């Protein structure tokens, strides 16, 4: 049931995530959802963790979801979907259902890296047949830009405010994609809305693999990143080209880089357009800027090595 991934074909398809939702203009998250749902013709059931995406897409009496959709608390998208998926398997076994249905959970980084991590890890280990897609905008944007464990080193948020004493977040982000790979599940990938074909292909591939799958997608948030509203795609592309957000997949333990930047750009290209990193460009924070670049270089080298040996 793979859809042909050309713009011409895709434009003919009915939207599964429709207009009329109330995400901010220029938000990356709905683009992520649209691409993910566009990539397949399978009937899908969505579970959605609490967050911007959930609150803005289901304002009382309205829904932007053209597919079955269930929402529970912040920490439970994977657990709730585990229940739904298990019931589906049971109905299938009992002969009460024969349609092939796919299951997708959406959560932001707060609901995935932090409070929802336990239920995500549990669902992956139990082996539920689902794709968990995290739209990672690097902070709790829905509640007012508080830091999360996905917030990058040096970023200014409302709970790690950059000032004269502390230059924003002092810790590096947690590498959730690698942590999910360590669950030894059949498919883990990183994607970006700037490379929509690459992302859509990953979703298609994931749907054809039985078992738990995890895809981490960068989703620029102009409110939290303090960037221009029309820069979501530009910034996600810069994230890829600076190797801040490498596009790769790990299929049955084998790492493959799916998009290699033609020229690896310096991280400042990604940081500069974002107000949350403004303070990093003052002379006293030069060291921190170097640290950010070093970390990215190190992680990228590691990934290259892994892709080579695999």
């Amino acid at each position, binding site marked *: 049931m793979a859809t042909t991934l050309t713009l011409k074909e895709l434009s003919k398809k009915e939207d599964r995530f429709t207009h009329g939702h109330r995400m901010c203009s220029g938000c990356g998250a709905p683009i992520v959802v649209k691409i993910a749902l566009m990539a397949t013709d399978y009937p899908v059931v969505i579970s959605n963790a609490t967050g911007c995406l959930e609150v803005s897409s289901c304002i009382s009496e309205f829904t932007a979801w053209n597919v079955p959709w269930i929402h529970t*608390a912040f920490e439970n998208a994977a657990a709730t979907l585990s229940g739904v998926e298990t019931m589906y398997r049971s109905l299938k076994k009992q002969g009460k259902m024969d349609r092939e249905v796919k299951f997708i959970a959406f959560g932001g980084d707060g609901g995935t890296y932090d*409070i929802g991590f336990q239920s995500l890890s549990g669902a992956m280990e139990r082996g539920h047949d689902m794709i968990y897609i995290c739209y990672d905008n690097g902070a*709790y944007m829905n509640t*007012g830009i*508080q830091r999360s464990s996905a917030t990058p080193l040096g970023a200014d948020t*409302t709970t790690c405010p950059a000032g004269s004493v502390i230059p924003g977040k002092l810790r590096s982000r947690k590498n959730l994609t690698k942590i999910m790979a360590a669950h030894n599940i059949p498919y883990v990938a990183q994607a970006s809305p700037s490379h929509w074909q690459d992302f859509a292909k990953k979703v298609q591939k994931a749907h054809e693999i039985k078992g738990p799958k995890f895809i981490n997608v960068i989703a620029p948030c102009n409110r939290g990143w303090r960037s221009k509203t029309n820069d979501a795609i530009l910034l996600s592309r810069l994230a890829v080209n600076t190797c801040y957000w490498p596009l790769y997949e790990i299929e049955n333990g084998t790492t493959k880089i799916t998009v290699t930047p033609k020229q690896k750009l310096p991280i400042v290209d990604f940081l500069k357009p974002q107000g949350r990193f403004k303070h990093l460009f003052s002379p006293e924070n030069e060291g921190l800027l170097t640290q950010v670049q070093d970390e990215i270089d190190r992680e990228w080298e590691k990934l290259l090595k892994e892709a080579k040996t695999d």
Partner: protein
Amino acid sequence: MPKKKMLLMKGNEALAEAAVHAGCRFYAGYPITPQNEIPEYLSRRMPEVEGIFIQAESELAAVNMVYGAAAAGARAMTSSSSPGISLKQEAISFLAGAELPAVIVNIQRGGPGLGNITASQADYFQAVKGGGHGDYHCMVFSPFNLQEMWDLTMRAFDKADQYRTPVMILGDGVVGQMMEPFHPTPYKRPRLPRKSWVLNGAKGRGPRVVRSLCMGTGELEQRNLILQKKYELMKKQEVMCEEYDTKDAALIVVAFGIAARIGLSAVKELRKEGRKIGLFRPITLFPFPAKQIAALSGKGRRFMVIEMNAGQMVEDVRLAVNGKADVQFYGRPGGVVFTPEELYGKLKSAYGRRG
């Protein structure tokens, strides 16, 4: 008379600053609307006073950090809003069981479930009846303006230490979000028992144990009896309430928190028009001012309880009145905030009705 120094802040920030004034140097929190100003404010403020701010990965983690800090002797606080407070209940039960002092702030929003983010009072039962498992209570304060957000927060830390108990400040989205001037009363530390139980290293002294696990025969019953004794003592010593024009009132409105604030506007208006109406406001919800309400009942008086929920405190008012007066109820559940005009109409017709 010298003019009093006044501060203009948001309610959540006033609460956070009052905690700092009261010597709170450990705060752990997690984002949830409408209480985010508390962690945001303290993330900036705590480093200035060499205090600790931690943003946890969940409400469970935040309240358990407070459990750890309290065991180490710190004045510790966590805050959240309704769904997050539900997640904290296990640890609050542990705090009560292990007799650890801590301050827990609930800036209530509409429920059940994810509900909404507007002000509500629907967590009354959860706050005053226990909330988590086991026979326990938190002492519960209900601020109805920013002056009380300030004063009661400081008091909460003292009472937590005095009784070795978790204390809850039950605010709501309105008192948390609104701004109004208040006087930043300086903190005066009362005489408090020494924390002779603190786990701060057994060098030069015998080991200490702080726990809520009591497996020995009869041990848990004994612990429970100690807790119950504590609650009885609170009922004798800690009840706080306020009465407005209740002396000659034929109808007494009973309300807590922001409902009382709005109710008071309506009551004042009706008084001006010559109606004998008053308002009774519990400030501590546990211990509940049952005696004070009982003393007001009889003499043909009627009561009207107003709450921003489907009827919770009204049960305690009825228990206090014990059949000696008619108790009516008016409530708006689901995060709906009363308007003074709406209450004026409701109270006027309740007053007019001959019971």
